[in-house]
């Protein structure tokens, strides 16, 4: 209770003090035109205050009986400094009075700083200068950064430790099942892009070929979509190592034959593209077509998943988090935004999907930890394991089983998807609403089906918003910390950069903690640059 009362008093006092300072500054600038000496006196008082404080804290005053005694300890030095500054300022202002024009100029030049100054000062002292100091500290010797000299040790420590960063096993990426499936999806996407373009602008022969190609591609796409889903479900139902379908898929997908077929296809499509470039024919590729853009997205997801689940180190794990959560939340949010428009009870449904945004990540971790709960014997009390048990499968520890690595990461990431999907859905559905009706009307008059008008009219219109959602999510997810802390605390290869940074800070290894923060910053720098470019364009 004491703390509570102290809080109220402190808040009231500090707000009052801030108000006095702000109104005082505003009034002082008001005086620049009518009463110049008052203005210079106020400026002098502020400078004197700062100087007095500096003198007091640095012990610059001689330690004589008059000055060094009681005066030095207290606020009197500071107040004396202010008074002296005010007197000096007022005197100087009385002697040197600039012309009315100059005084007007002073007033309008200083006023914005009274308004914007506090915010700028807060951000400078609380973010910019500490940020620069963190970069500085990350190059300093010793754990606390107090020892003289600079070093790259903290970075080399990160990038030579296999736990944090390694490219070992990168060759396995190319034999990873998901990666090959992703490659196949990319080839299908490219072929679909060509076929779609050919059907629009191609010759009669091309149209016929494209029509047949599209049918074949539809089959291939269905296989590519269904196979990973079935594999996923099956590996959920049984241990990944015992999954029959996964075994068959593995045999099919990782056999040399498949690998060669995919490689030949990929090389073939590259060759076709190159040939048309050399002949200076512009190859028409329609990436905006529903089939090609969806397959491209699927391919990208599978490629990234294949690559990042193979590489294992904290840095890669962080990247995996960003790609998975930003991608899944946006895709799911977009899907829900579109479907909710046609669903009954739209508003209520949206509110409930949006609700996890209000729940703290720590709370979300407790909720989902309980969902994933596993009991060694007897009844399963976690919902997921109970479902598995009810269907007759063995239970699993989603976070802790060694057989789940690295997919235990996915189950933590899913908690974040649960939180962020509502955000993506709300923002994207507002963007879809904002698409002008005339555009959709025109598309309908031209005979576009609902699917076509979504992919060809709505998607290009909401593209900027999708980019904003994705960049916002990238920024949020890069620094993910609470969820990992409260679920596994980084055990079983689920560690992320922010958690490692926190642990180093707890151990008072300030310099290596700073180095982790800088690596984290490096991951978001592209987003920062992109945002700055965008704002420059908006303000220009």
């Amino acid at each position, binding site marked *: 209770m004491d703390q509570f009362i102290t*809080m109220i008093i402190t*808040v009231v006092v*500090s707000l009052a003090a801030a108000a006095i300072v702000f109104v005082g500054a505003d009034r002082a600038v008001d005086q620049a035109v009518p009463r110049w000496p008052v203005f210079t006196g106020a400026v002098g008082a502020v400078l004197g205050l700062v100087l007095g404080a500096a003198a007091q804290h640095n012990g610059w005053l001689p330690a004589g009986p008059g000055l060094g005694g009681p005066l030095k300890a207290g606020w009197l030095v500071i107040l004396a400094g202010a008074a002296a500054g005010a007197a000096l300022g007022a005197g100087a202002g009385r002697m040197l009075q600039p012309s009315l024009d100059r005084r007007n100029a002073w007033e309008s*030049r200083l*006023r*914005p*700083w009274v*308004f*914007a100054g506090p*915010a*700028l000062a807060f*951000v400078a*002292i*609380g*973010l910019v200068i500490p*940020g620069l*100091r963190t970069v500085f*500290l990350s190059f300093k010797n010793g754990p606390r950064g107090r020892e003289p000299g600079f070093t790259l040790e903290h970075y080399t420590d990160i990038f030579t430790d296999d736990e944090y960063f390694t490219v070992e096993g990168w060759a396995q990426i190319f034999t990873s099942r998901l990666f090959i499936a992703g490659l196949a999806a990319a080839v299908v996407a490219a072929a679909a892009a060509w076929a779609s373009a050919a059907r629009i602008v191609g010759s009669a022969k091309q149209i016929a070929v494209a029509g047949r190609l599209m049918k074949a591609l539809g089959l291939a796409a269905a296989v590519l979509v269904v196979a990973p889903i079935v594999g996923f479900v099956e590996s959920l139902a049984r241990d990944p190592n015992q999954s029959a379908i996964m075994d068959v898929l593995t045999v099919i997908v990782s056999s040399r034959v498949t690998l060669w077929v995919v490689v030949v296809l990929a090389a073939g499509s590259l060759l076709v593209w190159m040939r048309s470039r050399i002949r200076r024919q512009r190859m028409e590729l329609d990436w905006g077509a529903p089939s090609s853009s969806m397959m491209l997205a699927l391919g990208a997801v599978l490629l990234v998943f294949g690559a990042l689940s193979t590489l294992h180190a904290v840095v890669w794990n962080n990247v995996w988090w960003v790609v998975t959560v930003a991608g899944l939340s946006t895709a*799911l949010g977009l899907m*829900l935004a579109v*479907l*909710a428009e046609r*669903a*009954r*009870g739209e508003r209520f*449904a949206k509110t*409930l999907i949006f*609700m*996890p*945004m*209000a*729940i*703290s990540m*720590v*709370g979300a971790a407790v909720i989902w*930890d*309980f969902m994933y709960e596993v009991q060694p014997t007897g009844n399963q*009390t976690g*919902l997921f394991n*109970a479902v598995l048990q009810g269907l007759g499968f063995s239970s699993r520890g989603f976070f802790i089983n060694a057989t789940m690595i690295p997919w235990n990461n996915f189950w933590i990431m899913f908690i974040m998807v649960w939180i962020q999907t509502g955000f993506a859905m709300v*923002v994207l559905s507002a*963007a879809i609403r904002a698409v002008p009706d005339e555009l959709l009307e025109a598309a309908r008059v031209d005979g576009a089906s609902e699917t076509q008008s979504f992919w060809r009219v709505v998607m290009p219109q909401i593209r900027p918003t999708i980019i*904003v959602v994705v960049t916002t999510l990238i*920024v949020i997810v*890069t*620094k993910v*910390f*609470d969820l990992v802390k*409260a679920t596994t605390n980084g055990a079983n290869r689920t560690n992320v950069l*922010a958690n490692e*940074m926190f642990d180093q*800070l707890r151990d008072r290894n300030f310099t290596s903690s700073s180095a*982790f*923060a800088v690596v984290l*910053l490096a991951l*978001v720098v592209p987003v920062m640059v992109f*945002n700055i470019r965008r*704002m*420059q364009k908006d*303000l220009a």
Partner: protein
Amino acid sequence: MTAPATIPPPAGRRMRQLLGSLPTWVVWLVVLLWTVPTFGLFVSSFRKVIDINESGWWTAWNDLDNLTFQNYRDIFRETAAQPSMWEFALNSIAIVVPATIIPIAVAAFAAYGFSWMEFRGRNWLFIALVSMIALPNQMAFVPLLQLFNNGARLTIPGLDWTFVLFPDLGIGNTAAAVWLTHTAFGLPLAVLLLHNFISQLPRSVFEAARIDGASHFTIFWRLVLPLARPALAAFAVFQFLWTWNDYLIAAVLLTDNEPMTVALVNLVGERGSNFQLRFASAFVIMVIPLIVFFSLQRHFVRGLLAGSVKG
């Protein structure tokens, strides 16, 4: 006789109806998956330890008499091992209230200055300020911790002369340190939100007020603040949820007088003992944000949109 002719249309219509209700089914399936976990936690918070460990929460319906308020009574009772949740709740409030009010006050002035005052370097400074949204908080922790605990000193190399840049105000490990940190971290987004709103107010209003001789301060106080109330509310909801739910900043800056999130993580850490208390605690932490969320959802959505959709 007409029966064969009339059979196909209903079948087709039924098919179309089925397809038409597909979105509803998919959306509500997602809603189910999205709400069941929270509901499960809520039910579990009323169950006894034995029940929690032996059967799933969905079986609680079989024996409603077994539900109890004991967990809630336990977390609000002070024991030797664990202080009462009230204490953590008060700590949370002591952090959240100032950490919400201060950034709004500071940001409103700045947003007005950046929207309606001309000065050199305005766009440049605004972009620099707002681009700090993407800066990971982790970049500021070590220096801020040092600043709050020791102040800042600069040693001039060569001269070996140490100069106090910022005095040690003795706010290390206090709620004040947490407010100031939240203020600095929240300001970029606050300025962006309020600027997007305030800069869209009609220019004629300001011109008329200027002609009538109103000063910038009067315009801000009498015109901008009342007009910008929706945007202020939007950011207030935002900042409230963010500070209430924050774990990282409190965990870095505080070693005692922690807020509820830190208490919950400590509780989760002790597996086994007090296992059943975490559900009740997690729910207690969620209650206030959920009330705020459901009652002020309109403002929250507006804040989200203003922050991410231009205009």
